[in-house]
């Protein structure tokens, strides 16, 4: 199997979808000829033509609405929002329309759109290129929310999302597009070629949404996280010598409660972690659900390791980002609590 980075894997997923499904169309700001600001759609317009892969005007509401209209006609649009931070102009079309077309029409119309967006921090993007707005969307009935953490999943999940029947908000952790990140800012970049999930089949395969994966088995505590922080968590556990069980959630809506509860019932200690601000973040949902289901197994309070309740800072990015040092402290806190 070839080694791919996440961008190559996403590109390969869209290549497969365009080839297999004539109703697949891809569009977004700079997504056509140029291939996207991160290059995820590079070469696809040349291969499939202007009709299939094209540039959209700088209007995220228009991009989302166009996708809703096309999906109503039976197309399978994959819309790119250039940065997750730019998704807010589209939010009425996503929340009031895309998510509810099936419901409000009692199944007469559907809206199986995939909205892709580079997401999260760690690239010195400042407050408008670093956000993790997943919790806005996990609060919306009718949309699925997915966050892959590696090339293999990115490809399989994007194919599954586009071939599914529901709208999917597909957030791509851009810090790890080119290689996994251990949460230490100045460490040299590692390559996906050295990571088992950097092995990506050329052809069609699916990684179904709604299923989490235990990426490290352990007994001392459970870490529930997604995106870039999956890699930060694994490295923190190794560095601290703490036998953590680490769950890559992959899909946030609907999330895999069974994998979480089985692990927490085993370890009795849990860290939920995300880059987004703490208050009303997705970690709040996880913590609440975990205490409902695993209350009598818990031996320590659920630890929320998150970004701060501030906008995402530029110069002090690493004071905001839950990097290796904060992760180790979180693991120590939950495992040492008596």
């Amino acid at each position, binding site marked *: 199997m070839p080694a791919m980075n996440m961008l190559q894997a996403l590109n390969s997923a869209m290549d497969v979808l365009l080839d297999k499904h004539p109703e697949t*169309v891809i569009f977004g700001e700079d997504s056509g000829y140029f291939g996207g600001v991160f290059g995820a759609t590079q070469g696809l317009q040349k291969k499939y033509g202007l009709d299939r892969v094209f540039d959209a005007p700088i209007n995220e509401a228009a991009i989302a609405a166009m996708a809703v*209209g096309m999906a109503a006609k*039976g197309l399978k649009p994959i819309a790119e929002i250039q940065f997750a931070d730019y998704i807010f102009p589209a939010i*009425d079309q996503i929340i009031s329309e895309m998510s509810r077309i099936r419901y409000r*029409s009692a199944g*007469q*119309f559907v809206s199986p759109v995939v909205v892709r967006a580079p997401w999260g921090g760690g690239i010195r993007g400042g407050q408008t290129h670093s956000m993790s707005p997943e919790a806005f969307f996990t609060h919306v009935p009718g949309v699925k929310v997915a966050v892959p953490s590696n090339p293999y999943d990115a490809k399989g999940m994007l194919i599954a999302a586009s071939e599914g029947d*529901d709208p999917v908000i597909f957030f791509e952790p851009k810090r790890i597009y080119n290689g996994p990140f251990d949460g230490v800012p100045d460490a040299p970049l590692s390559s996906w070629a050295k990571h088992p999930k950097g092995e990506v089949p050329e052809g069609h395969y699916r990684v179904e949404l709604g299923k989490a994966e235990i990426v490290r088995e352990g007994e001392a505590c459970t870490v529930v996280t997604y995106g870039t922080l999956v890699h930060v968590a694994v490295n923190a556990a190794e560095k601290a010598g703490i036998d953590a069980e680490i769950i890559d959630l992959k899909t946030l809506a609907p999330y895999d409660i069974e994998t979480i509860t089985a692990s927490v019932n085993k370890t009795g200690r849990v860290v939920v972690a995300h880059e987004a601000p703490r208050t009303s973040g997705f970690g709040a949902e996880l913590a609440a659900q975990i205490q409902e289901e695993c209350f009598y197994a818990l031996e320590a309070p659920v630890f929320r390791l998150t970004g701060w309740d501030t906008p995402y800072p530029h110069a002090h990015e690493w004071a905001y980002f839950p990097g290796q040092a904060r992760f180790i402290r979180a693991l120590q806190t939950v495992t040492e609590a008596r």
Partner: protein
Amino acid sequence: MSNGQSRFHVPAPPFRPGDTPDFSHLDLQKAGEAKRPDPLTAPREMTDLAFGLIGVLDHNHQAVGDWDPRLSPEVLREGLSHMVLTRIYDARMLKLQRQGKMSFYMKSLGEEAVAVAGAMALNFSDMVFPSYRQQGILFARGRNIVDMMCHCISNSRDNLKGRQLPVHYTWAEGNFFTISGNLGTQFPQAVGYAMGCAYKGEDTIAASWIGEGTTAAPDFHAAMTLASTYRAPVILNVVNNQWAISTWQGIARGDAATFASKGLGYGLASLRVDGNDFLAVYAATKWAADRARKGGGATYIELFTYRADAHSTSDDPARYRPKTEFEVWPLGDPIERLKNHLIGLGEWDEERHAALEEQMTALVVKSYKEAESHGTLHDGPLAPTHTIFEDVYASEDWRLRRQRQDLGV
């Protein structure tokens, strides 16, 4: 215009309750005067159509000028019949709402030609993305009235399972998209749908309607930009009925000469049409549909009309405008105008009109009895309670399954 000093400016309507309305200041082009260009004419060669007023029926109820669609008396009578039915249906539903039979209602009094003529000029296969005041499309497309009423009273036969407010119809079999309550969202969606038609190489087009107030919304700009950029086979209608609930049309227009002229900057074919003239609405829609089907792209149409009744059952227009505005509205009543035209042709008379009204009233009364036999919002039966958990996703996930079980359904 300026006294050399910037001043805070908020425009106000010329008439408020207690004033005597007078629309003689409106500069309305006379019926028959607007030229009818070939449908594939470049927008910049027909900008005059955005400032004038396409009209066919003159003050003597004669059809005049290039835009006369030359419809047969049968088609004219059909249009009249749909408009009469729309008006009688609306009046009856309003009364039933007042009696507590439904939670909410919105009439289209005075605007019946907009929806009925528009729908009749399109093909049945063309997808419509209406707002909440185009129920006339459903009558023109032959929807079962009992089904419409079952939706409005949210009973066990509501095809939307009680999920939507009354009048937010959906009818996929009739190529009628699901109506949103959020204004203007359907405008760019219609463009996306139309692009899908073109992508698939079909002859089908899309049409959408919003009110003049919604031309201020971001989705209006989204739709116009998309329609122009991708030359989509779509008709974008702005129903200028002068009032957005209590807000006067001047609040959304700024210093644009007309709402139609907003289309010119986008490079779109932009028409301003007498919305109370059945023949003009029909002709303009047909022209735009031809343009779209022949690859000429989108047309943007301002339908100039007047909302003769309240916005909805939740507002009293006497609190924000003179009661007599509709009486002196210079473009009259669309039903009266088509009726008088048919009478002038010798194809209609008062007796037949009275009989038509009686027939439609009987149909509406009978239909309501049948609809009510399937339940009402107040007394049930409704769709089974467990259906609130259906159609959120294609299939139920654990969260919804558990919540449904919590509710015990």
